[in-house]
């Protein structure tokens, strides 16, 4: 129970920070102050809050769980690829969006798109698609919160109640503190979970009697040795994952965070230290997730997971899809890091580390705030609400929206059967990566048009729905060869894999991004450009 008490104290501290931010902002019921902290974040808070907002439940729970099942490949798939692509996109796109926000007062990406392409309702379509894909991200946070509290309390706090507590705390400090509260809490949380990895590694390593014997034992065990390599993953699949981090800059909450910097120089440290921050969190989690496979004798739950994995691999082909799904749930490793902590860390430290996990889990605050900002700016204010009712009512509308969206996400989180990692990757990440040509077109290509933007958005929404429908209609096969649904001349075009979908052997994100880029080019070339004055506003030159 001690770990659970430490976690509850942590939740109280987070709540206090949010309310402190609310007091600081009292009397300033302006949209720019509530939603963007008056574009005044300093370098330290900007670095940690921007990084923290991108680290959700899967950074700790999902990464270690994925590594437990798939081995070291997890780090190369998501962490090192993100360490290259995300800071690069912040450097190229984030800085430009910041400058445009400062010059023209934009508070959301859709405001910029509407201005850049002289469009109205197409902007609304982009808003709807962005909002629909952002909700799963919020659900992940609540699911992670429920899992964490339930495991840390040894089952005393049930999943539904843990999720409810996390949802309530996040909702409260976002509701009161707005962007300032969210940024401060994120900074506090990021420092916590940056410390988490190193402490967890040392404590668990000490408890296990060092990693050397565990790693060498795995190397010598035929069933576990592949987890130290990448032989179970195809190079196509590995390559596909480098497209996923394109989603980061296309996520509205990241782009909105880019608008909060006081000066452009604050991007410098963020860009340079981003890969190191990712390394600091992911490397220990992935390593511990892999090493957990050697602890079956110490931790019965890990033995059960491995048994479920073995049955799935050997008998999965002859089972009903429902039975396979049940075994997959049993084999999933989202809680292995907490099982290791419970076994090897002293109680009070397990609590502190549990708080570190909660910090990562609760990163859904920025998504909730971003959705609220988008709704009030892109819909409420755009369709006349701000003019009619004033800025104070706009802020209150944003707050009501925060309550509604959190409630909705909580209800869905109770129903969702997928593991944290799968849910995030399959829907939100691929979809936002596919929207990235919108930003590249708007900022770097004079010739892009609103019709090109619409084509990208409609394609993205259709592709995400198509993948979701495909995966729900065609059950996932047992581990091993994929189920090929369509092949041409011996080439596999479409296949259902144990982990998702493959198109020509690649993850769907690859064709989604490439087709998006192609549509932006072809449709823009065939349609009318915005006025010369608008293009000049963004690229310089003659405004007449």
């Amino acid at each position: 129970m001690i770990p659970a008490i430490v976690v509850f104290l942590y939740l109280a501290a987070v709540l206090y920070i949010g309310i402190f931010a609310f007091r600081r902002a009292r009397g300033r019921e302006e949209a720019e102050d509530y939603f963007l902290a008056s574009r005044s974040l300093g370098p330290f808070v900007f670095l940690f809050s921007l990084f923290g907002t991108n680290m959700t439940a899967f950074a700790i729970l999902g990464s270690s769980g994925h590594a437990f099942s798939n081995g070291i490949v997890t780090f190369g798939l998501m962490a090192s690829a993100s360490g290259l692509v995300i800071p690069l996109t912040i450097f190229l796109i984030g800085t430009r969006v910041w400058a445009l926000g400062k010059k023209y007062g934009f508070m959301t990406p859709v405001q910029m798109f509407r201005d850049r392409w002289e469009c109205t309702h197409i902007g609304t379509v982009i808003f709807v698609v962005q909002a629909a894909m952002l909700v799963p991200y919020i659900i992940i946070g609540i699911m992670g919160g429920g899992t964490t509290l339930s495991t840390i309390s040894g089952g005393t706090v049930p999943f539904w109640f843990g999720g409810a507590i996390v949802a309530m705390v996040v909702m409260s400090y976002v509701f009161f503190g707005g962007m300032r509260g969210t940024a401060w809490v994120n900074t506090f949380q990021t420092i916590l979970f940056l410390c988490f990895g190193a402490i967890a590694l040392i404590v668990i390593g000490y408890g296990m009697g060092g990693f050397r014997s565990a790693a060498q034992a795995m190397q010598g065990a035929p069933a576990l040795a592949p987890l130290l390599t990448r032989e179970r993953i195809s190079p196509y699949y590995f390559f596909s994952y480098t497209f996923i981090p394109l989603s980061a800059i296309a996520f509205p909450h990241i782009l909105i965070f880019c608008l909060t910097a006081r000066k452009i120089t604050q991007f410098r440290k963020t860009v340079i230290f981003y890969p190191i921050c990712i390394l600091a969190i992911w490397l220990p989690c992935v390593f511990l997730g892999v090493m957990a496979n050697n602890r079956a004798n110490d931790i019965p739950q890990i033995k059960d997971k491995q048994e479920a994995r073995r049955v799935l691999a050997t008998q999965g082909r002859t089972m009903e899809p429902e039975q396979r799904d049940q075994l997959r749930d049993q084999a999933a490793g989202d809680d292995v890091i907490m099982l290791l902590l419970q076994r090897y860390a002293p109680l009070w430290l397990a609590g502190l580390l549990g708080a570190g996990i909660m910090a990562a889990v609760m990163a859904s605050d920025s998504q909730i705030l971003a959705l609220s900002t988008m709704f009030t700016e892109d819909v409420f204010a755009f369709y006349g609400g701000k003019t009619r009712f004033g800025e104070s009512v706009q802020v209150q509308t944003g707050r009501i929206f925060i309550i509604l969206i959190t409630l909705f996400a909580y209800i869905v989180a109770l129903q969702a059967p997928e593991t944290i990692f799968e849910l995030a990757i399959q829907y939100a990440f691929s979809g936002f990566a596919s929207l990235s040509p919108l930003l590249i077109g708007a900022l770097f290509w004079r010739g892009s048009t609103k019709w090109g933007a619409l084509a990208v958005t409609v394609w993205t929404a259709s592709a995400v729905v198509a993948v979701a429908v495909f995966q729900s209609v065609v059950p996932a096969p047992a581990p091993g060869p994929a189920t090929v649904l369509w092949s041409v001349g011996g080439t596999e075009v479409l296949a259902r894999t144990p982990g998702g979908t493959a198109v020509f052997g690649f993850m769907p994100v690859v064709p989604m991004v490439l087709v998006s880029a192609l549509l932006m080019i072809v449709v823009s070339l065939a349609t009318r450009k915005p006025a010369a004055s608008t293009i000049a506003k963004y690229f310089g030159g003659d405004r007449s």
Partner: protein
Amino acid sequence: MKRILLVVAVVALYVLHQDIWFWRSSYLVFGFIPIGLFYHAMFSFAAALLMWLLVTFAWPSHLEREVEEAEREEDRAP
């Protein structure tokens, strides 16, 4: 020339991410870190170094000037 070199460095690092040469190796660096994991940890440091090069040699300082100019114009407006 500086920009071309930086673009080449970005592309080269992207290619180096696909380290098929360590795909099936379970060799343990220092006796406990799998080589594939160690390589990608080093890759992250290389990415940070590349970001430092970009920030140092290709910083978009024109954006800052544009913003300052726009703010001055706004201040001057009646």
